[in-house]
């Protein structure tokens, strides 16, 4: 499906990509990880046909640079930083939908599922939306069409846990018919979403490994935490997660999205000394 053949990119004298060769098949969900400057964004831009480079990139045998409209018509892209577009939300949706040959209502529907009521912000400038709203809208535009490849750069970074859960559900619906490349600085952010991890460093692939595909994207975990004593900072950290406390604020119960378990445990780990009891139990889809 996607082939990188000895792809190299040099900016002035700095070699940012150094002979990358990869084959990514249909249905694979790849985590592209690495520190800042590892070459992730450059690799994505080569895939999108935005950078010239040595070597070859092909999607279904087509070069994205010379077959732009055909190749990019099958790619949904979510950038790490939302562009500062001054155009109204409605026009951005119509522009994208028109270019991609999709119905704007599909984008509206996905945005609505993510908790973004597009109808109320159609005339508002995109740049004036909050970080989370921008992210939800860009995800909606990427998922609101029949994209065969989803390329996402830190897609869930600005989403609240509720929206993250829905985002995982939306990705789960595309598992069979789309290839996903999800870029992130940290594996724990995306580990549950992917079945293959590619780590980059200094422009090279330093790790390419398959991941056990045991975590269902639509699974939900029932969670119970008992604290030894109440701490307001703990309550603040759980703000936004679907977890509430009992009357004495010592017992906390609720549910979290399966793919979010690592992220959730990361937050709880900051309060290890407070936790007297913790349980996470898979409740199914």
């Amino acid at each position, binding site marked *: 499906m996607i082939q990188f053949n000895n792809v190299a990119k040099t900016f002035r004298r700095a070699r940012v990509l150094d002979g990358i060769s990869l084959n990514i098949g249909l249905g694979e969900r790849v985590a592209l990880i690495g520190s800042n400057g590892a070459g992730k964004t450059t690799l994505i*831009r080569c895939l*999108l*046909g*935005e*950078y*010239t480079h040595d070597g070859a990139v092909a999607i279904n045998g087509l070069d994205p640079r010379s077959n*732009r*409209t*055909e*190749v*990019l*018509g099958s*790619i949904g*892209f979510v*950038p790490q*930083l*939302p*562009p*500062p*577009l*001054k*155009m*109204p939300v409605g*026009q951005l949706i119509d*522009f*994208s939908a*028109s*270019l*991609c040959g999709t119905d704007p209502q599909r984008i509206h529907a996905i945005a609505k599922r993510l908790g973004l009521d597009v109808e109320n912000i159609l005339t508002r*400038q995109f740049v004036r939306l909050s970080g989370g709203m921008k992210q939800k809208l*860009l995800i909606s535009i990427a998922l609101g069409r029949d994209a065969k490849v989803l*390329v996402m750069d830190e897609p869930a970074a600005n989403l609240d846990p509720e929206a993250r859960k829905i985002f995982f559900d939306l990705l789960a619906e595309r598992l069979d018919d789309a290839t996903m490349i999800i870029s992130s600085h940290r594996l724990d952010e995306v580990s549950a979403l992917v079945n293959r991890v590619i780590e980059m460093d200094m422009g090279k692939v330093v790790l390419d490994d398959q991941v056990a595909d045991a975590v269902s994207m639509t699974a939900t975990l029932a969670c119970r935490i008992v604290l030894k004593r109440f701490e307001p900072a703990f309550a603040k950290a759980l703000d936004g997660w679907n977890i509430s406390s009992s009357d004495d604020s010592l017992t906390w119960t609720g549910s979290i999205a399966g793919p979010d378990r690592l992220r959730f445990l990361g937050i709880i780990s900051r309060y290890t000394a407070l936790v007297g009891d913790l349980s996470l139990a898979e409740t199914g889809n």
Partner: protein
Amino acid sequence: MKQLWLTAKLDIVESLRARWFQIYTLIFGGIVALLFLFGLTESRVLGFIGLSRLLVTYIQLTMAILPIFVLITTVRSVAGDREAGVFEYLLSLPVSLSAWFWGKIVGRYIVVFAPVFLAMLGAVGWATVQGIEVPWNIFGYYTALLAVMAMCFLGIGMLISAIARSTDMAQGAAFLVWLTFLLFLDLILLGVMIQGKVSPEIAVTLALANPLQVFRTAALALFDPQLIVLGPSAYVILDLFGAEGYKIFALAYPAALGLLSATIGYFLFRRGDLP
């Protein structure tokens, strides 16, 4: 074609909301309003009175402001969009590079030309209401002159944007281009040429390679057909083109220069990294 118009529309909407456009519109609308306010239509200079006088003054002012404004705003917004990640996102959508580049030019051209033309049209409308005679031949030619002036500097601006990789570099280059044109206006150029004992034909040819000079001379030619104020240079120009020929040259050359610059810009844009 659909992609081109979509891109043009997008650029128009983006520009209409930008601060530079509001200032730009205010300047040209303000100039016309001020010219009326100060009773320019009542004054008589070189035999010009009424709306002709106003239009002559308007185009002189426009020639001083429009080139630098078009150059700076074009390179700032195009290079700025590239730096801010707008290109990264919008060019990840299935739009062809030709539709994107030329669509941007079409959209930007409409946005740049409309306020200048509408201000002039407003003056004509107001004059008609006031019963002042409208010199349609001058109005028509000035409109064409402003149209090619906008095209010329927009094309040069897009070329600079395609070459420069940062907003600062693009702005610096745009300013340098404008300054070069300005420094090589007839007086300085002819002074240097005369000191260097260059033949008048070469001096005038070099001067007329400068689009700013071409516009200036064309505007002068409307109220001074023999170009007396230019001195001996007028002989060379009129011998070479004739009065009507020069008017056509003043439209064709800058338009061709703008289109050529834009075309070179397009090929450079297509060949290099997009964001």
